[in-house]
């Protein structure tokens, strides 16, 4: 399933829908659709550029890392984050599409949280940006609700047998962010230094934050 580059010819199938040319032509079709919609005044070129710029340059896991680092250093912020994540994340200026209603789930020695969307690709854009390819692909979506320990092992994460794994399937419009445990040996670090330890995967639940020694 992960070989997305193979060709697969199909022009018209049983449902009578017109289907685009083979996948090798998909870039051409994207450019053609954009040209047509611009020509018809249905989209503007600067809007497309601006949306790409927002999600490539401004919005990404660096936002979520700031949220996590703040929660690790400010107990009152952590409490607000766990009771009303949408507002607490909004305090740092992160809001909008695919993050309208946020819930933060906290890891602890006895609980490890993992996020998935089995039905499509729901993911908290304002704090993590756009999802990695594996997150929106069939293997992860199919397996993590049924065999999370096996999946986490493939990401290099070993969760102790005594720790309850909670898999959150984003089936409605709530978007989840994992608050990972603060690594040991980080007592002296400032919030900005802590944020650099917080990986994207640690906020999905398929990774752990880096330790200072590992950097």
């Amino acid at each position, binding site marked *: 399933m992960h070989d997305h580059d193979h060709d697969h010819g199909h022009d018209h199938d049983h449902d009578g829908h017109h289907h685009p040319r083979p996948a090798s032509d998909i870039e051409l079709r994207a450019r053609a659709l954009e040209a*047509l919609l611009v020509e018809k005044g249905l989209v503007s070129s600067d809007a497309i550029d601006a949306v790409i710029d*927002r999600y490539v340059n401004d919005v990404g896991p660096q936002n979520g890392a700031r949220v996590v680092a703040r929660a690790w250093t400010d107990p009152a912020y952590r409490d607000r984050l766990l009771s009303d994540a949408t507002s607490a994340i909004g305090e740092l200026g992160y809001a909008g599409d695919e993050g309208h209603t946020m819930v933060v789930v906290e890891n602890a020695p006895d609980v490890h949280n993992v996020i998935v969307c089995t039905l499509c690709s729901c993911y908290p854009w304002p704090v993590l940006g756009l999802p990695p390819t594996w997150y929106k692909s069939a293997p992860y979506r199919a397996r993590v609700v049924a065999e999370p320990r096996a999946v986490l092992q493939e990401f290099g994460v070993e969760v102790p047998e005594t720790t309850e794994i909670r898999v959150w399937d984003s089936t409605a419009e709530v978007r989840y962010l994992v608050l990972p445990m603060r690594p040991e040996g980080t007592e002296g670090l400032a919030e900005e230094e802590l944020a650099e330890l917080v990986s994207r995967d640690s906020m999905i639940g398929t990774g752990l934050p880096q330790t200072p020694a590992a950097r």
Partner: protein
Amino acid sequence: MDGAHDLGGMQGFGPATWPGAEQALPNDWDARAFALAVTSSSQSTHAFRHTIERMGHARYLCVSYYEKWLHEAEQALVETGAITHAEVDAWVDRIAAGEQPPRREDPVATAQLLEAMATSHPMPPAAAAAFAVGDRVRVRRMRPAWHTRCPRYLRGATGEIFRIQGDDGVPDVNNAEREAVYAVRFEAHDLWGEDTGDHVVLADLWERYLEAA
């Protein structure tokens, strides 16, 4: 619609990750297809997803992620009559022949779009909730005609109300009605049988998907 998109619990797909899979936008066209779908769509989120679900199940499982979004962008506008597939085909030929695609700027609308994209509209609290935290519930059996957000792997399973998330438009009727959404907690053995581990799965389910257990 019960289709290929409803993947929870399926087997045989292989490893969960692989080299290169950490990228969000592997190709330049992925970014443009993403932005095109976001800027051109006038559909509800539910209708957007349903357009992708109707693209053909074999194809759904084969194409890359943003090819699905590109399909949505084209198909939705064809269905409203705004464009035709033949018009897109014609532009494919023109660009392949070397023609430079047009550009159009609309700074006012673009600023409004960005403002809207960065503004949250949180789900309001549930006005009326039939179930309380701790209640035992069973997910109803169903064969939904249109779009649904009730995955197959949960139907018939018994769980417990973990949290009341709020009040939201019902996907199955494209937001024509609103009702409570609950985070429901399921034990792994109630979903997959014995010997399947001791994890739990939590899913957000609309009230109409549930009955008292």
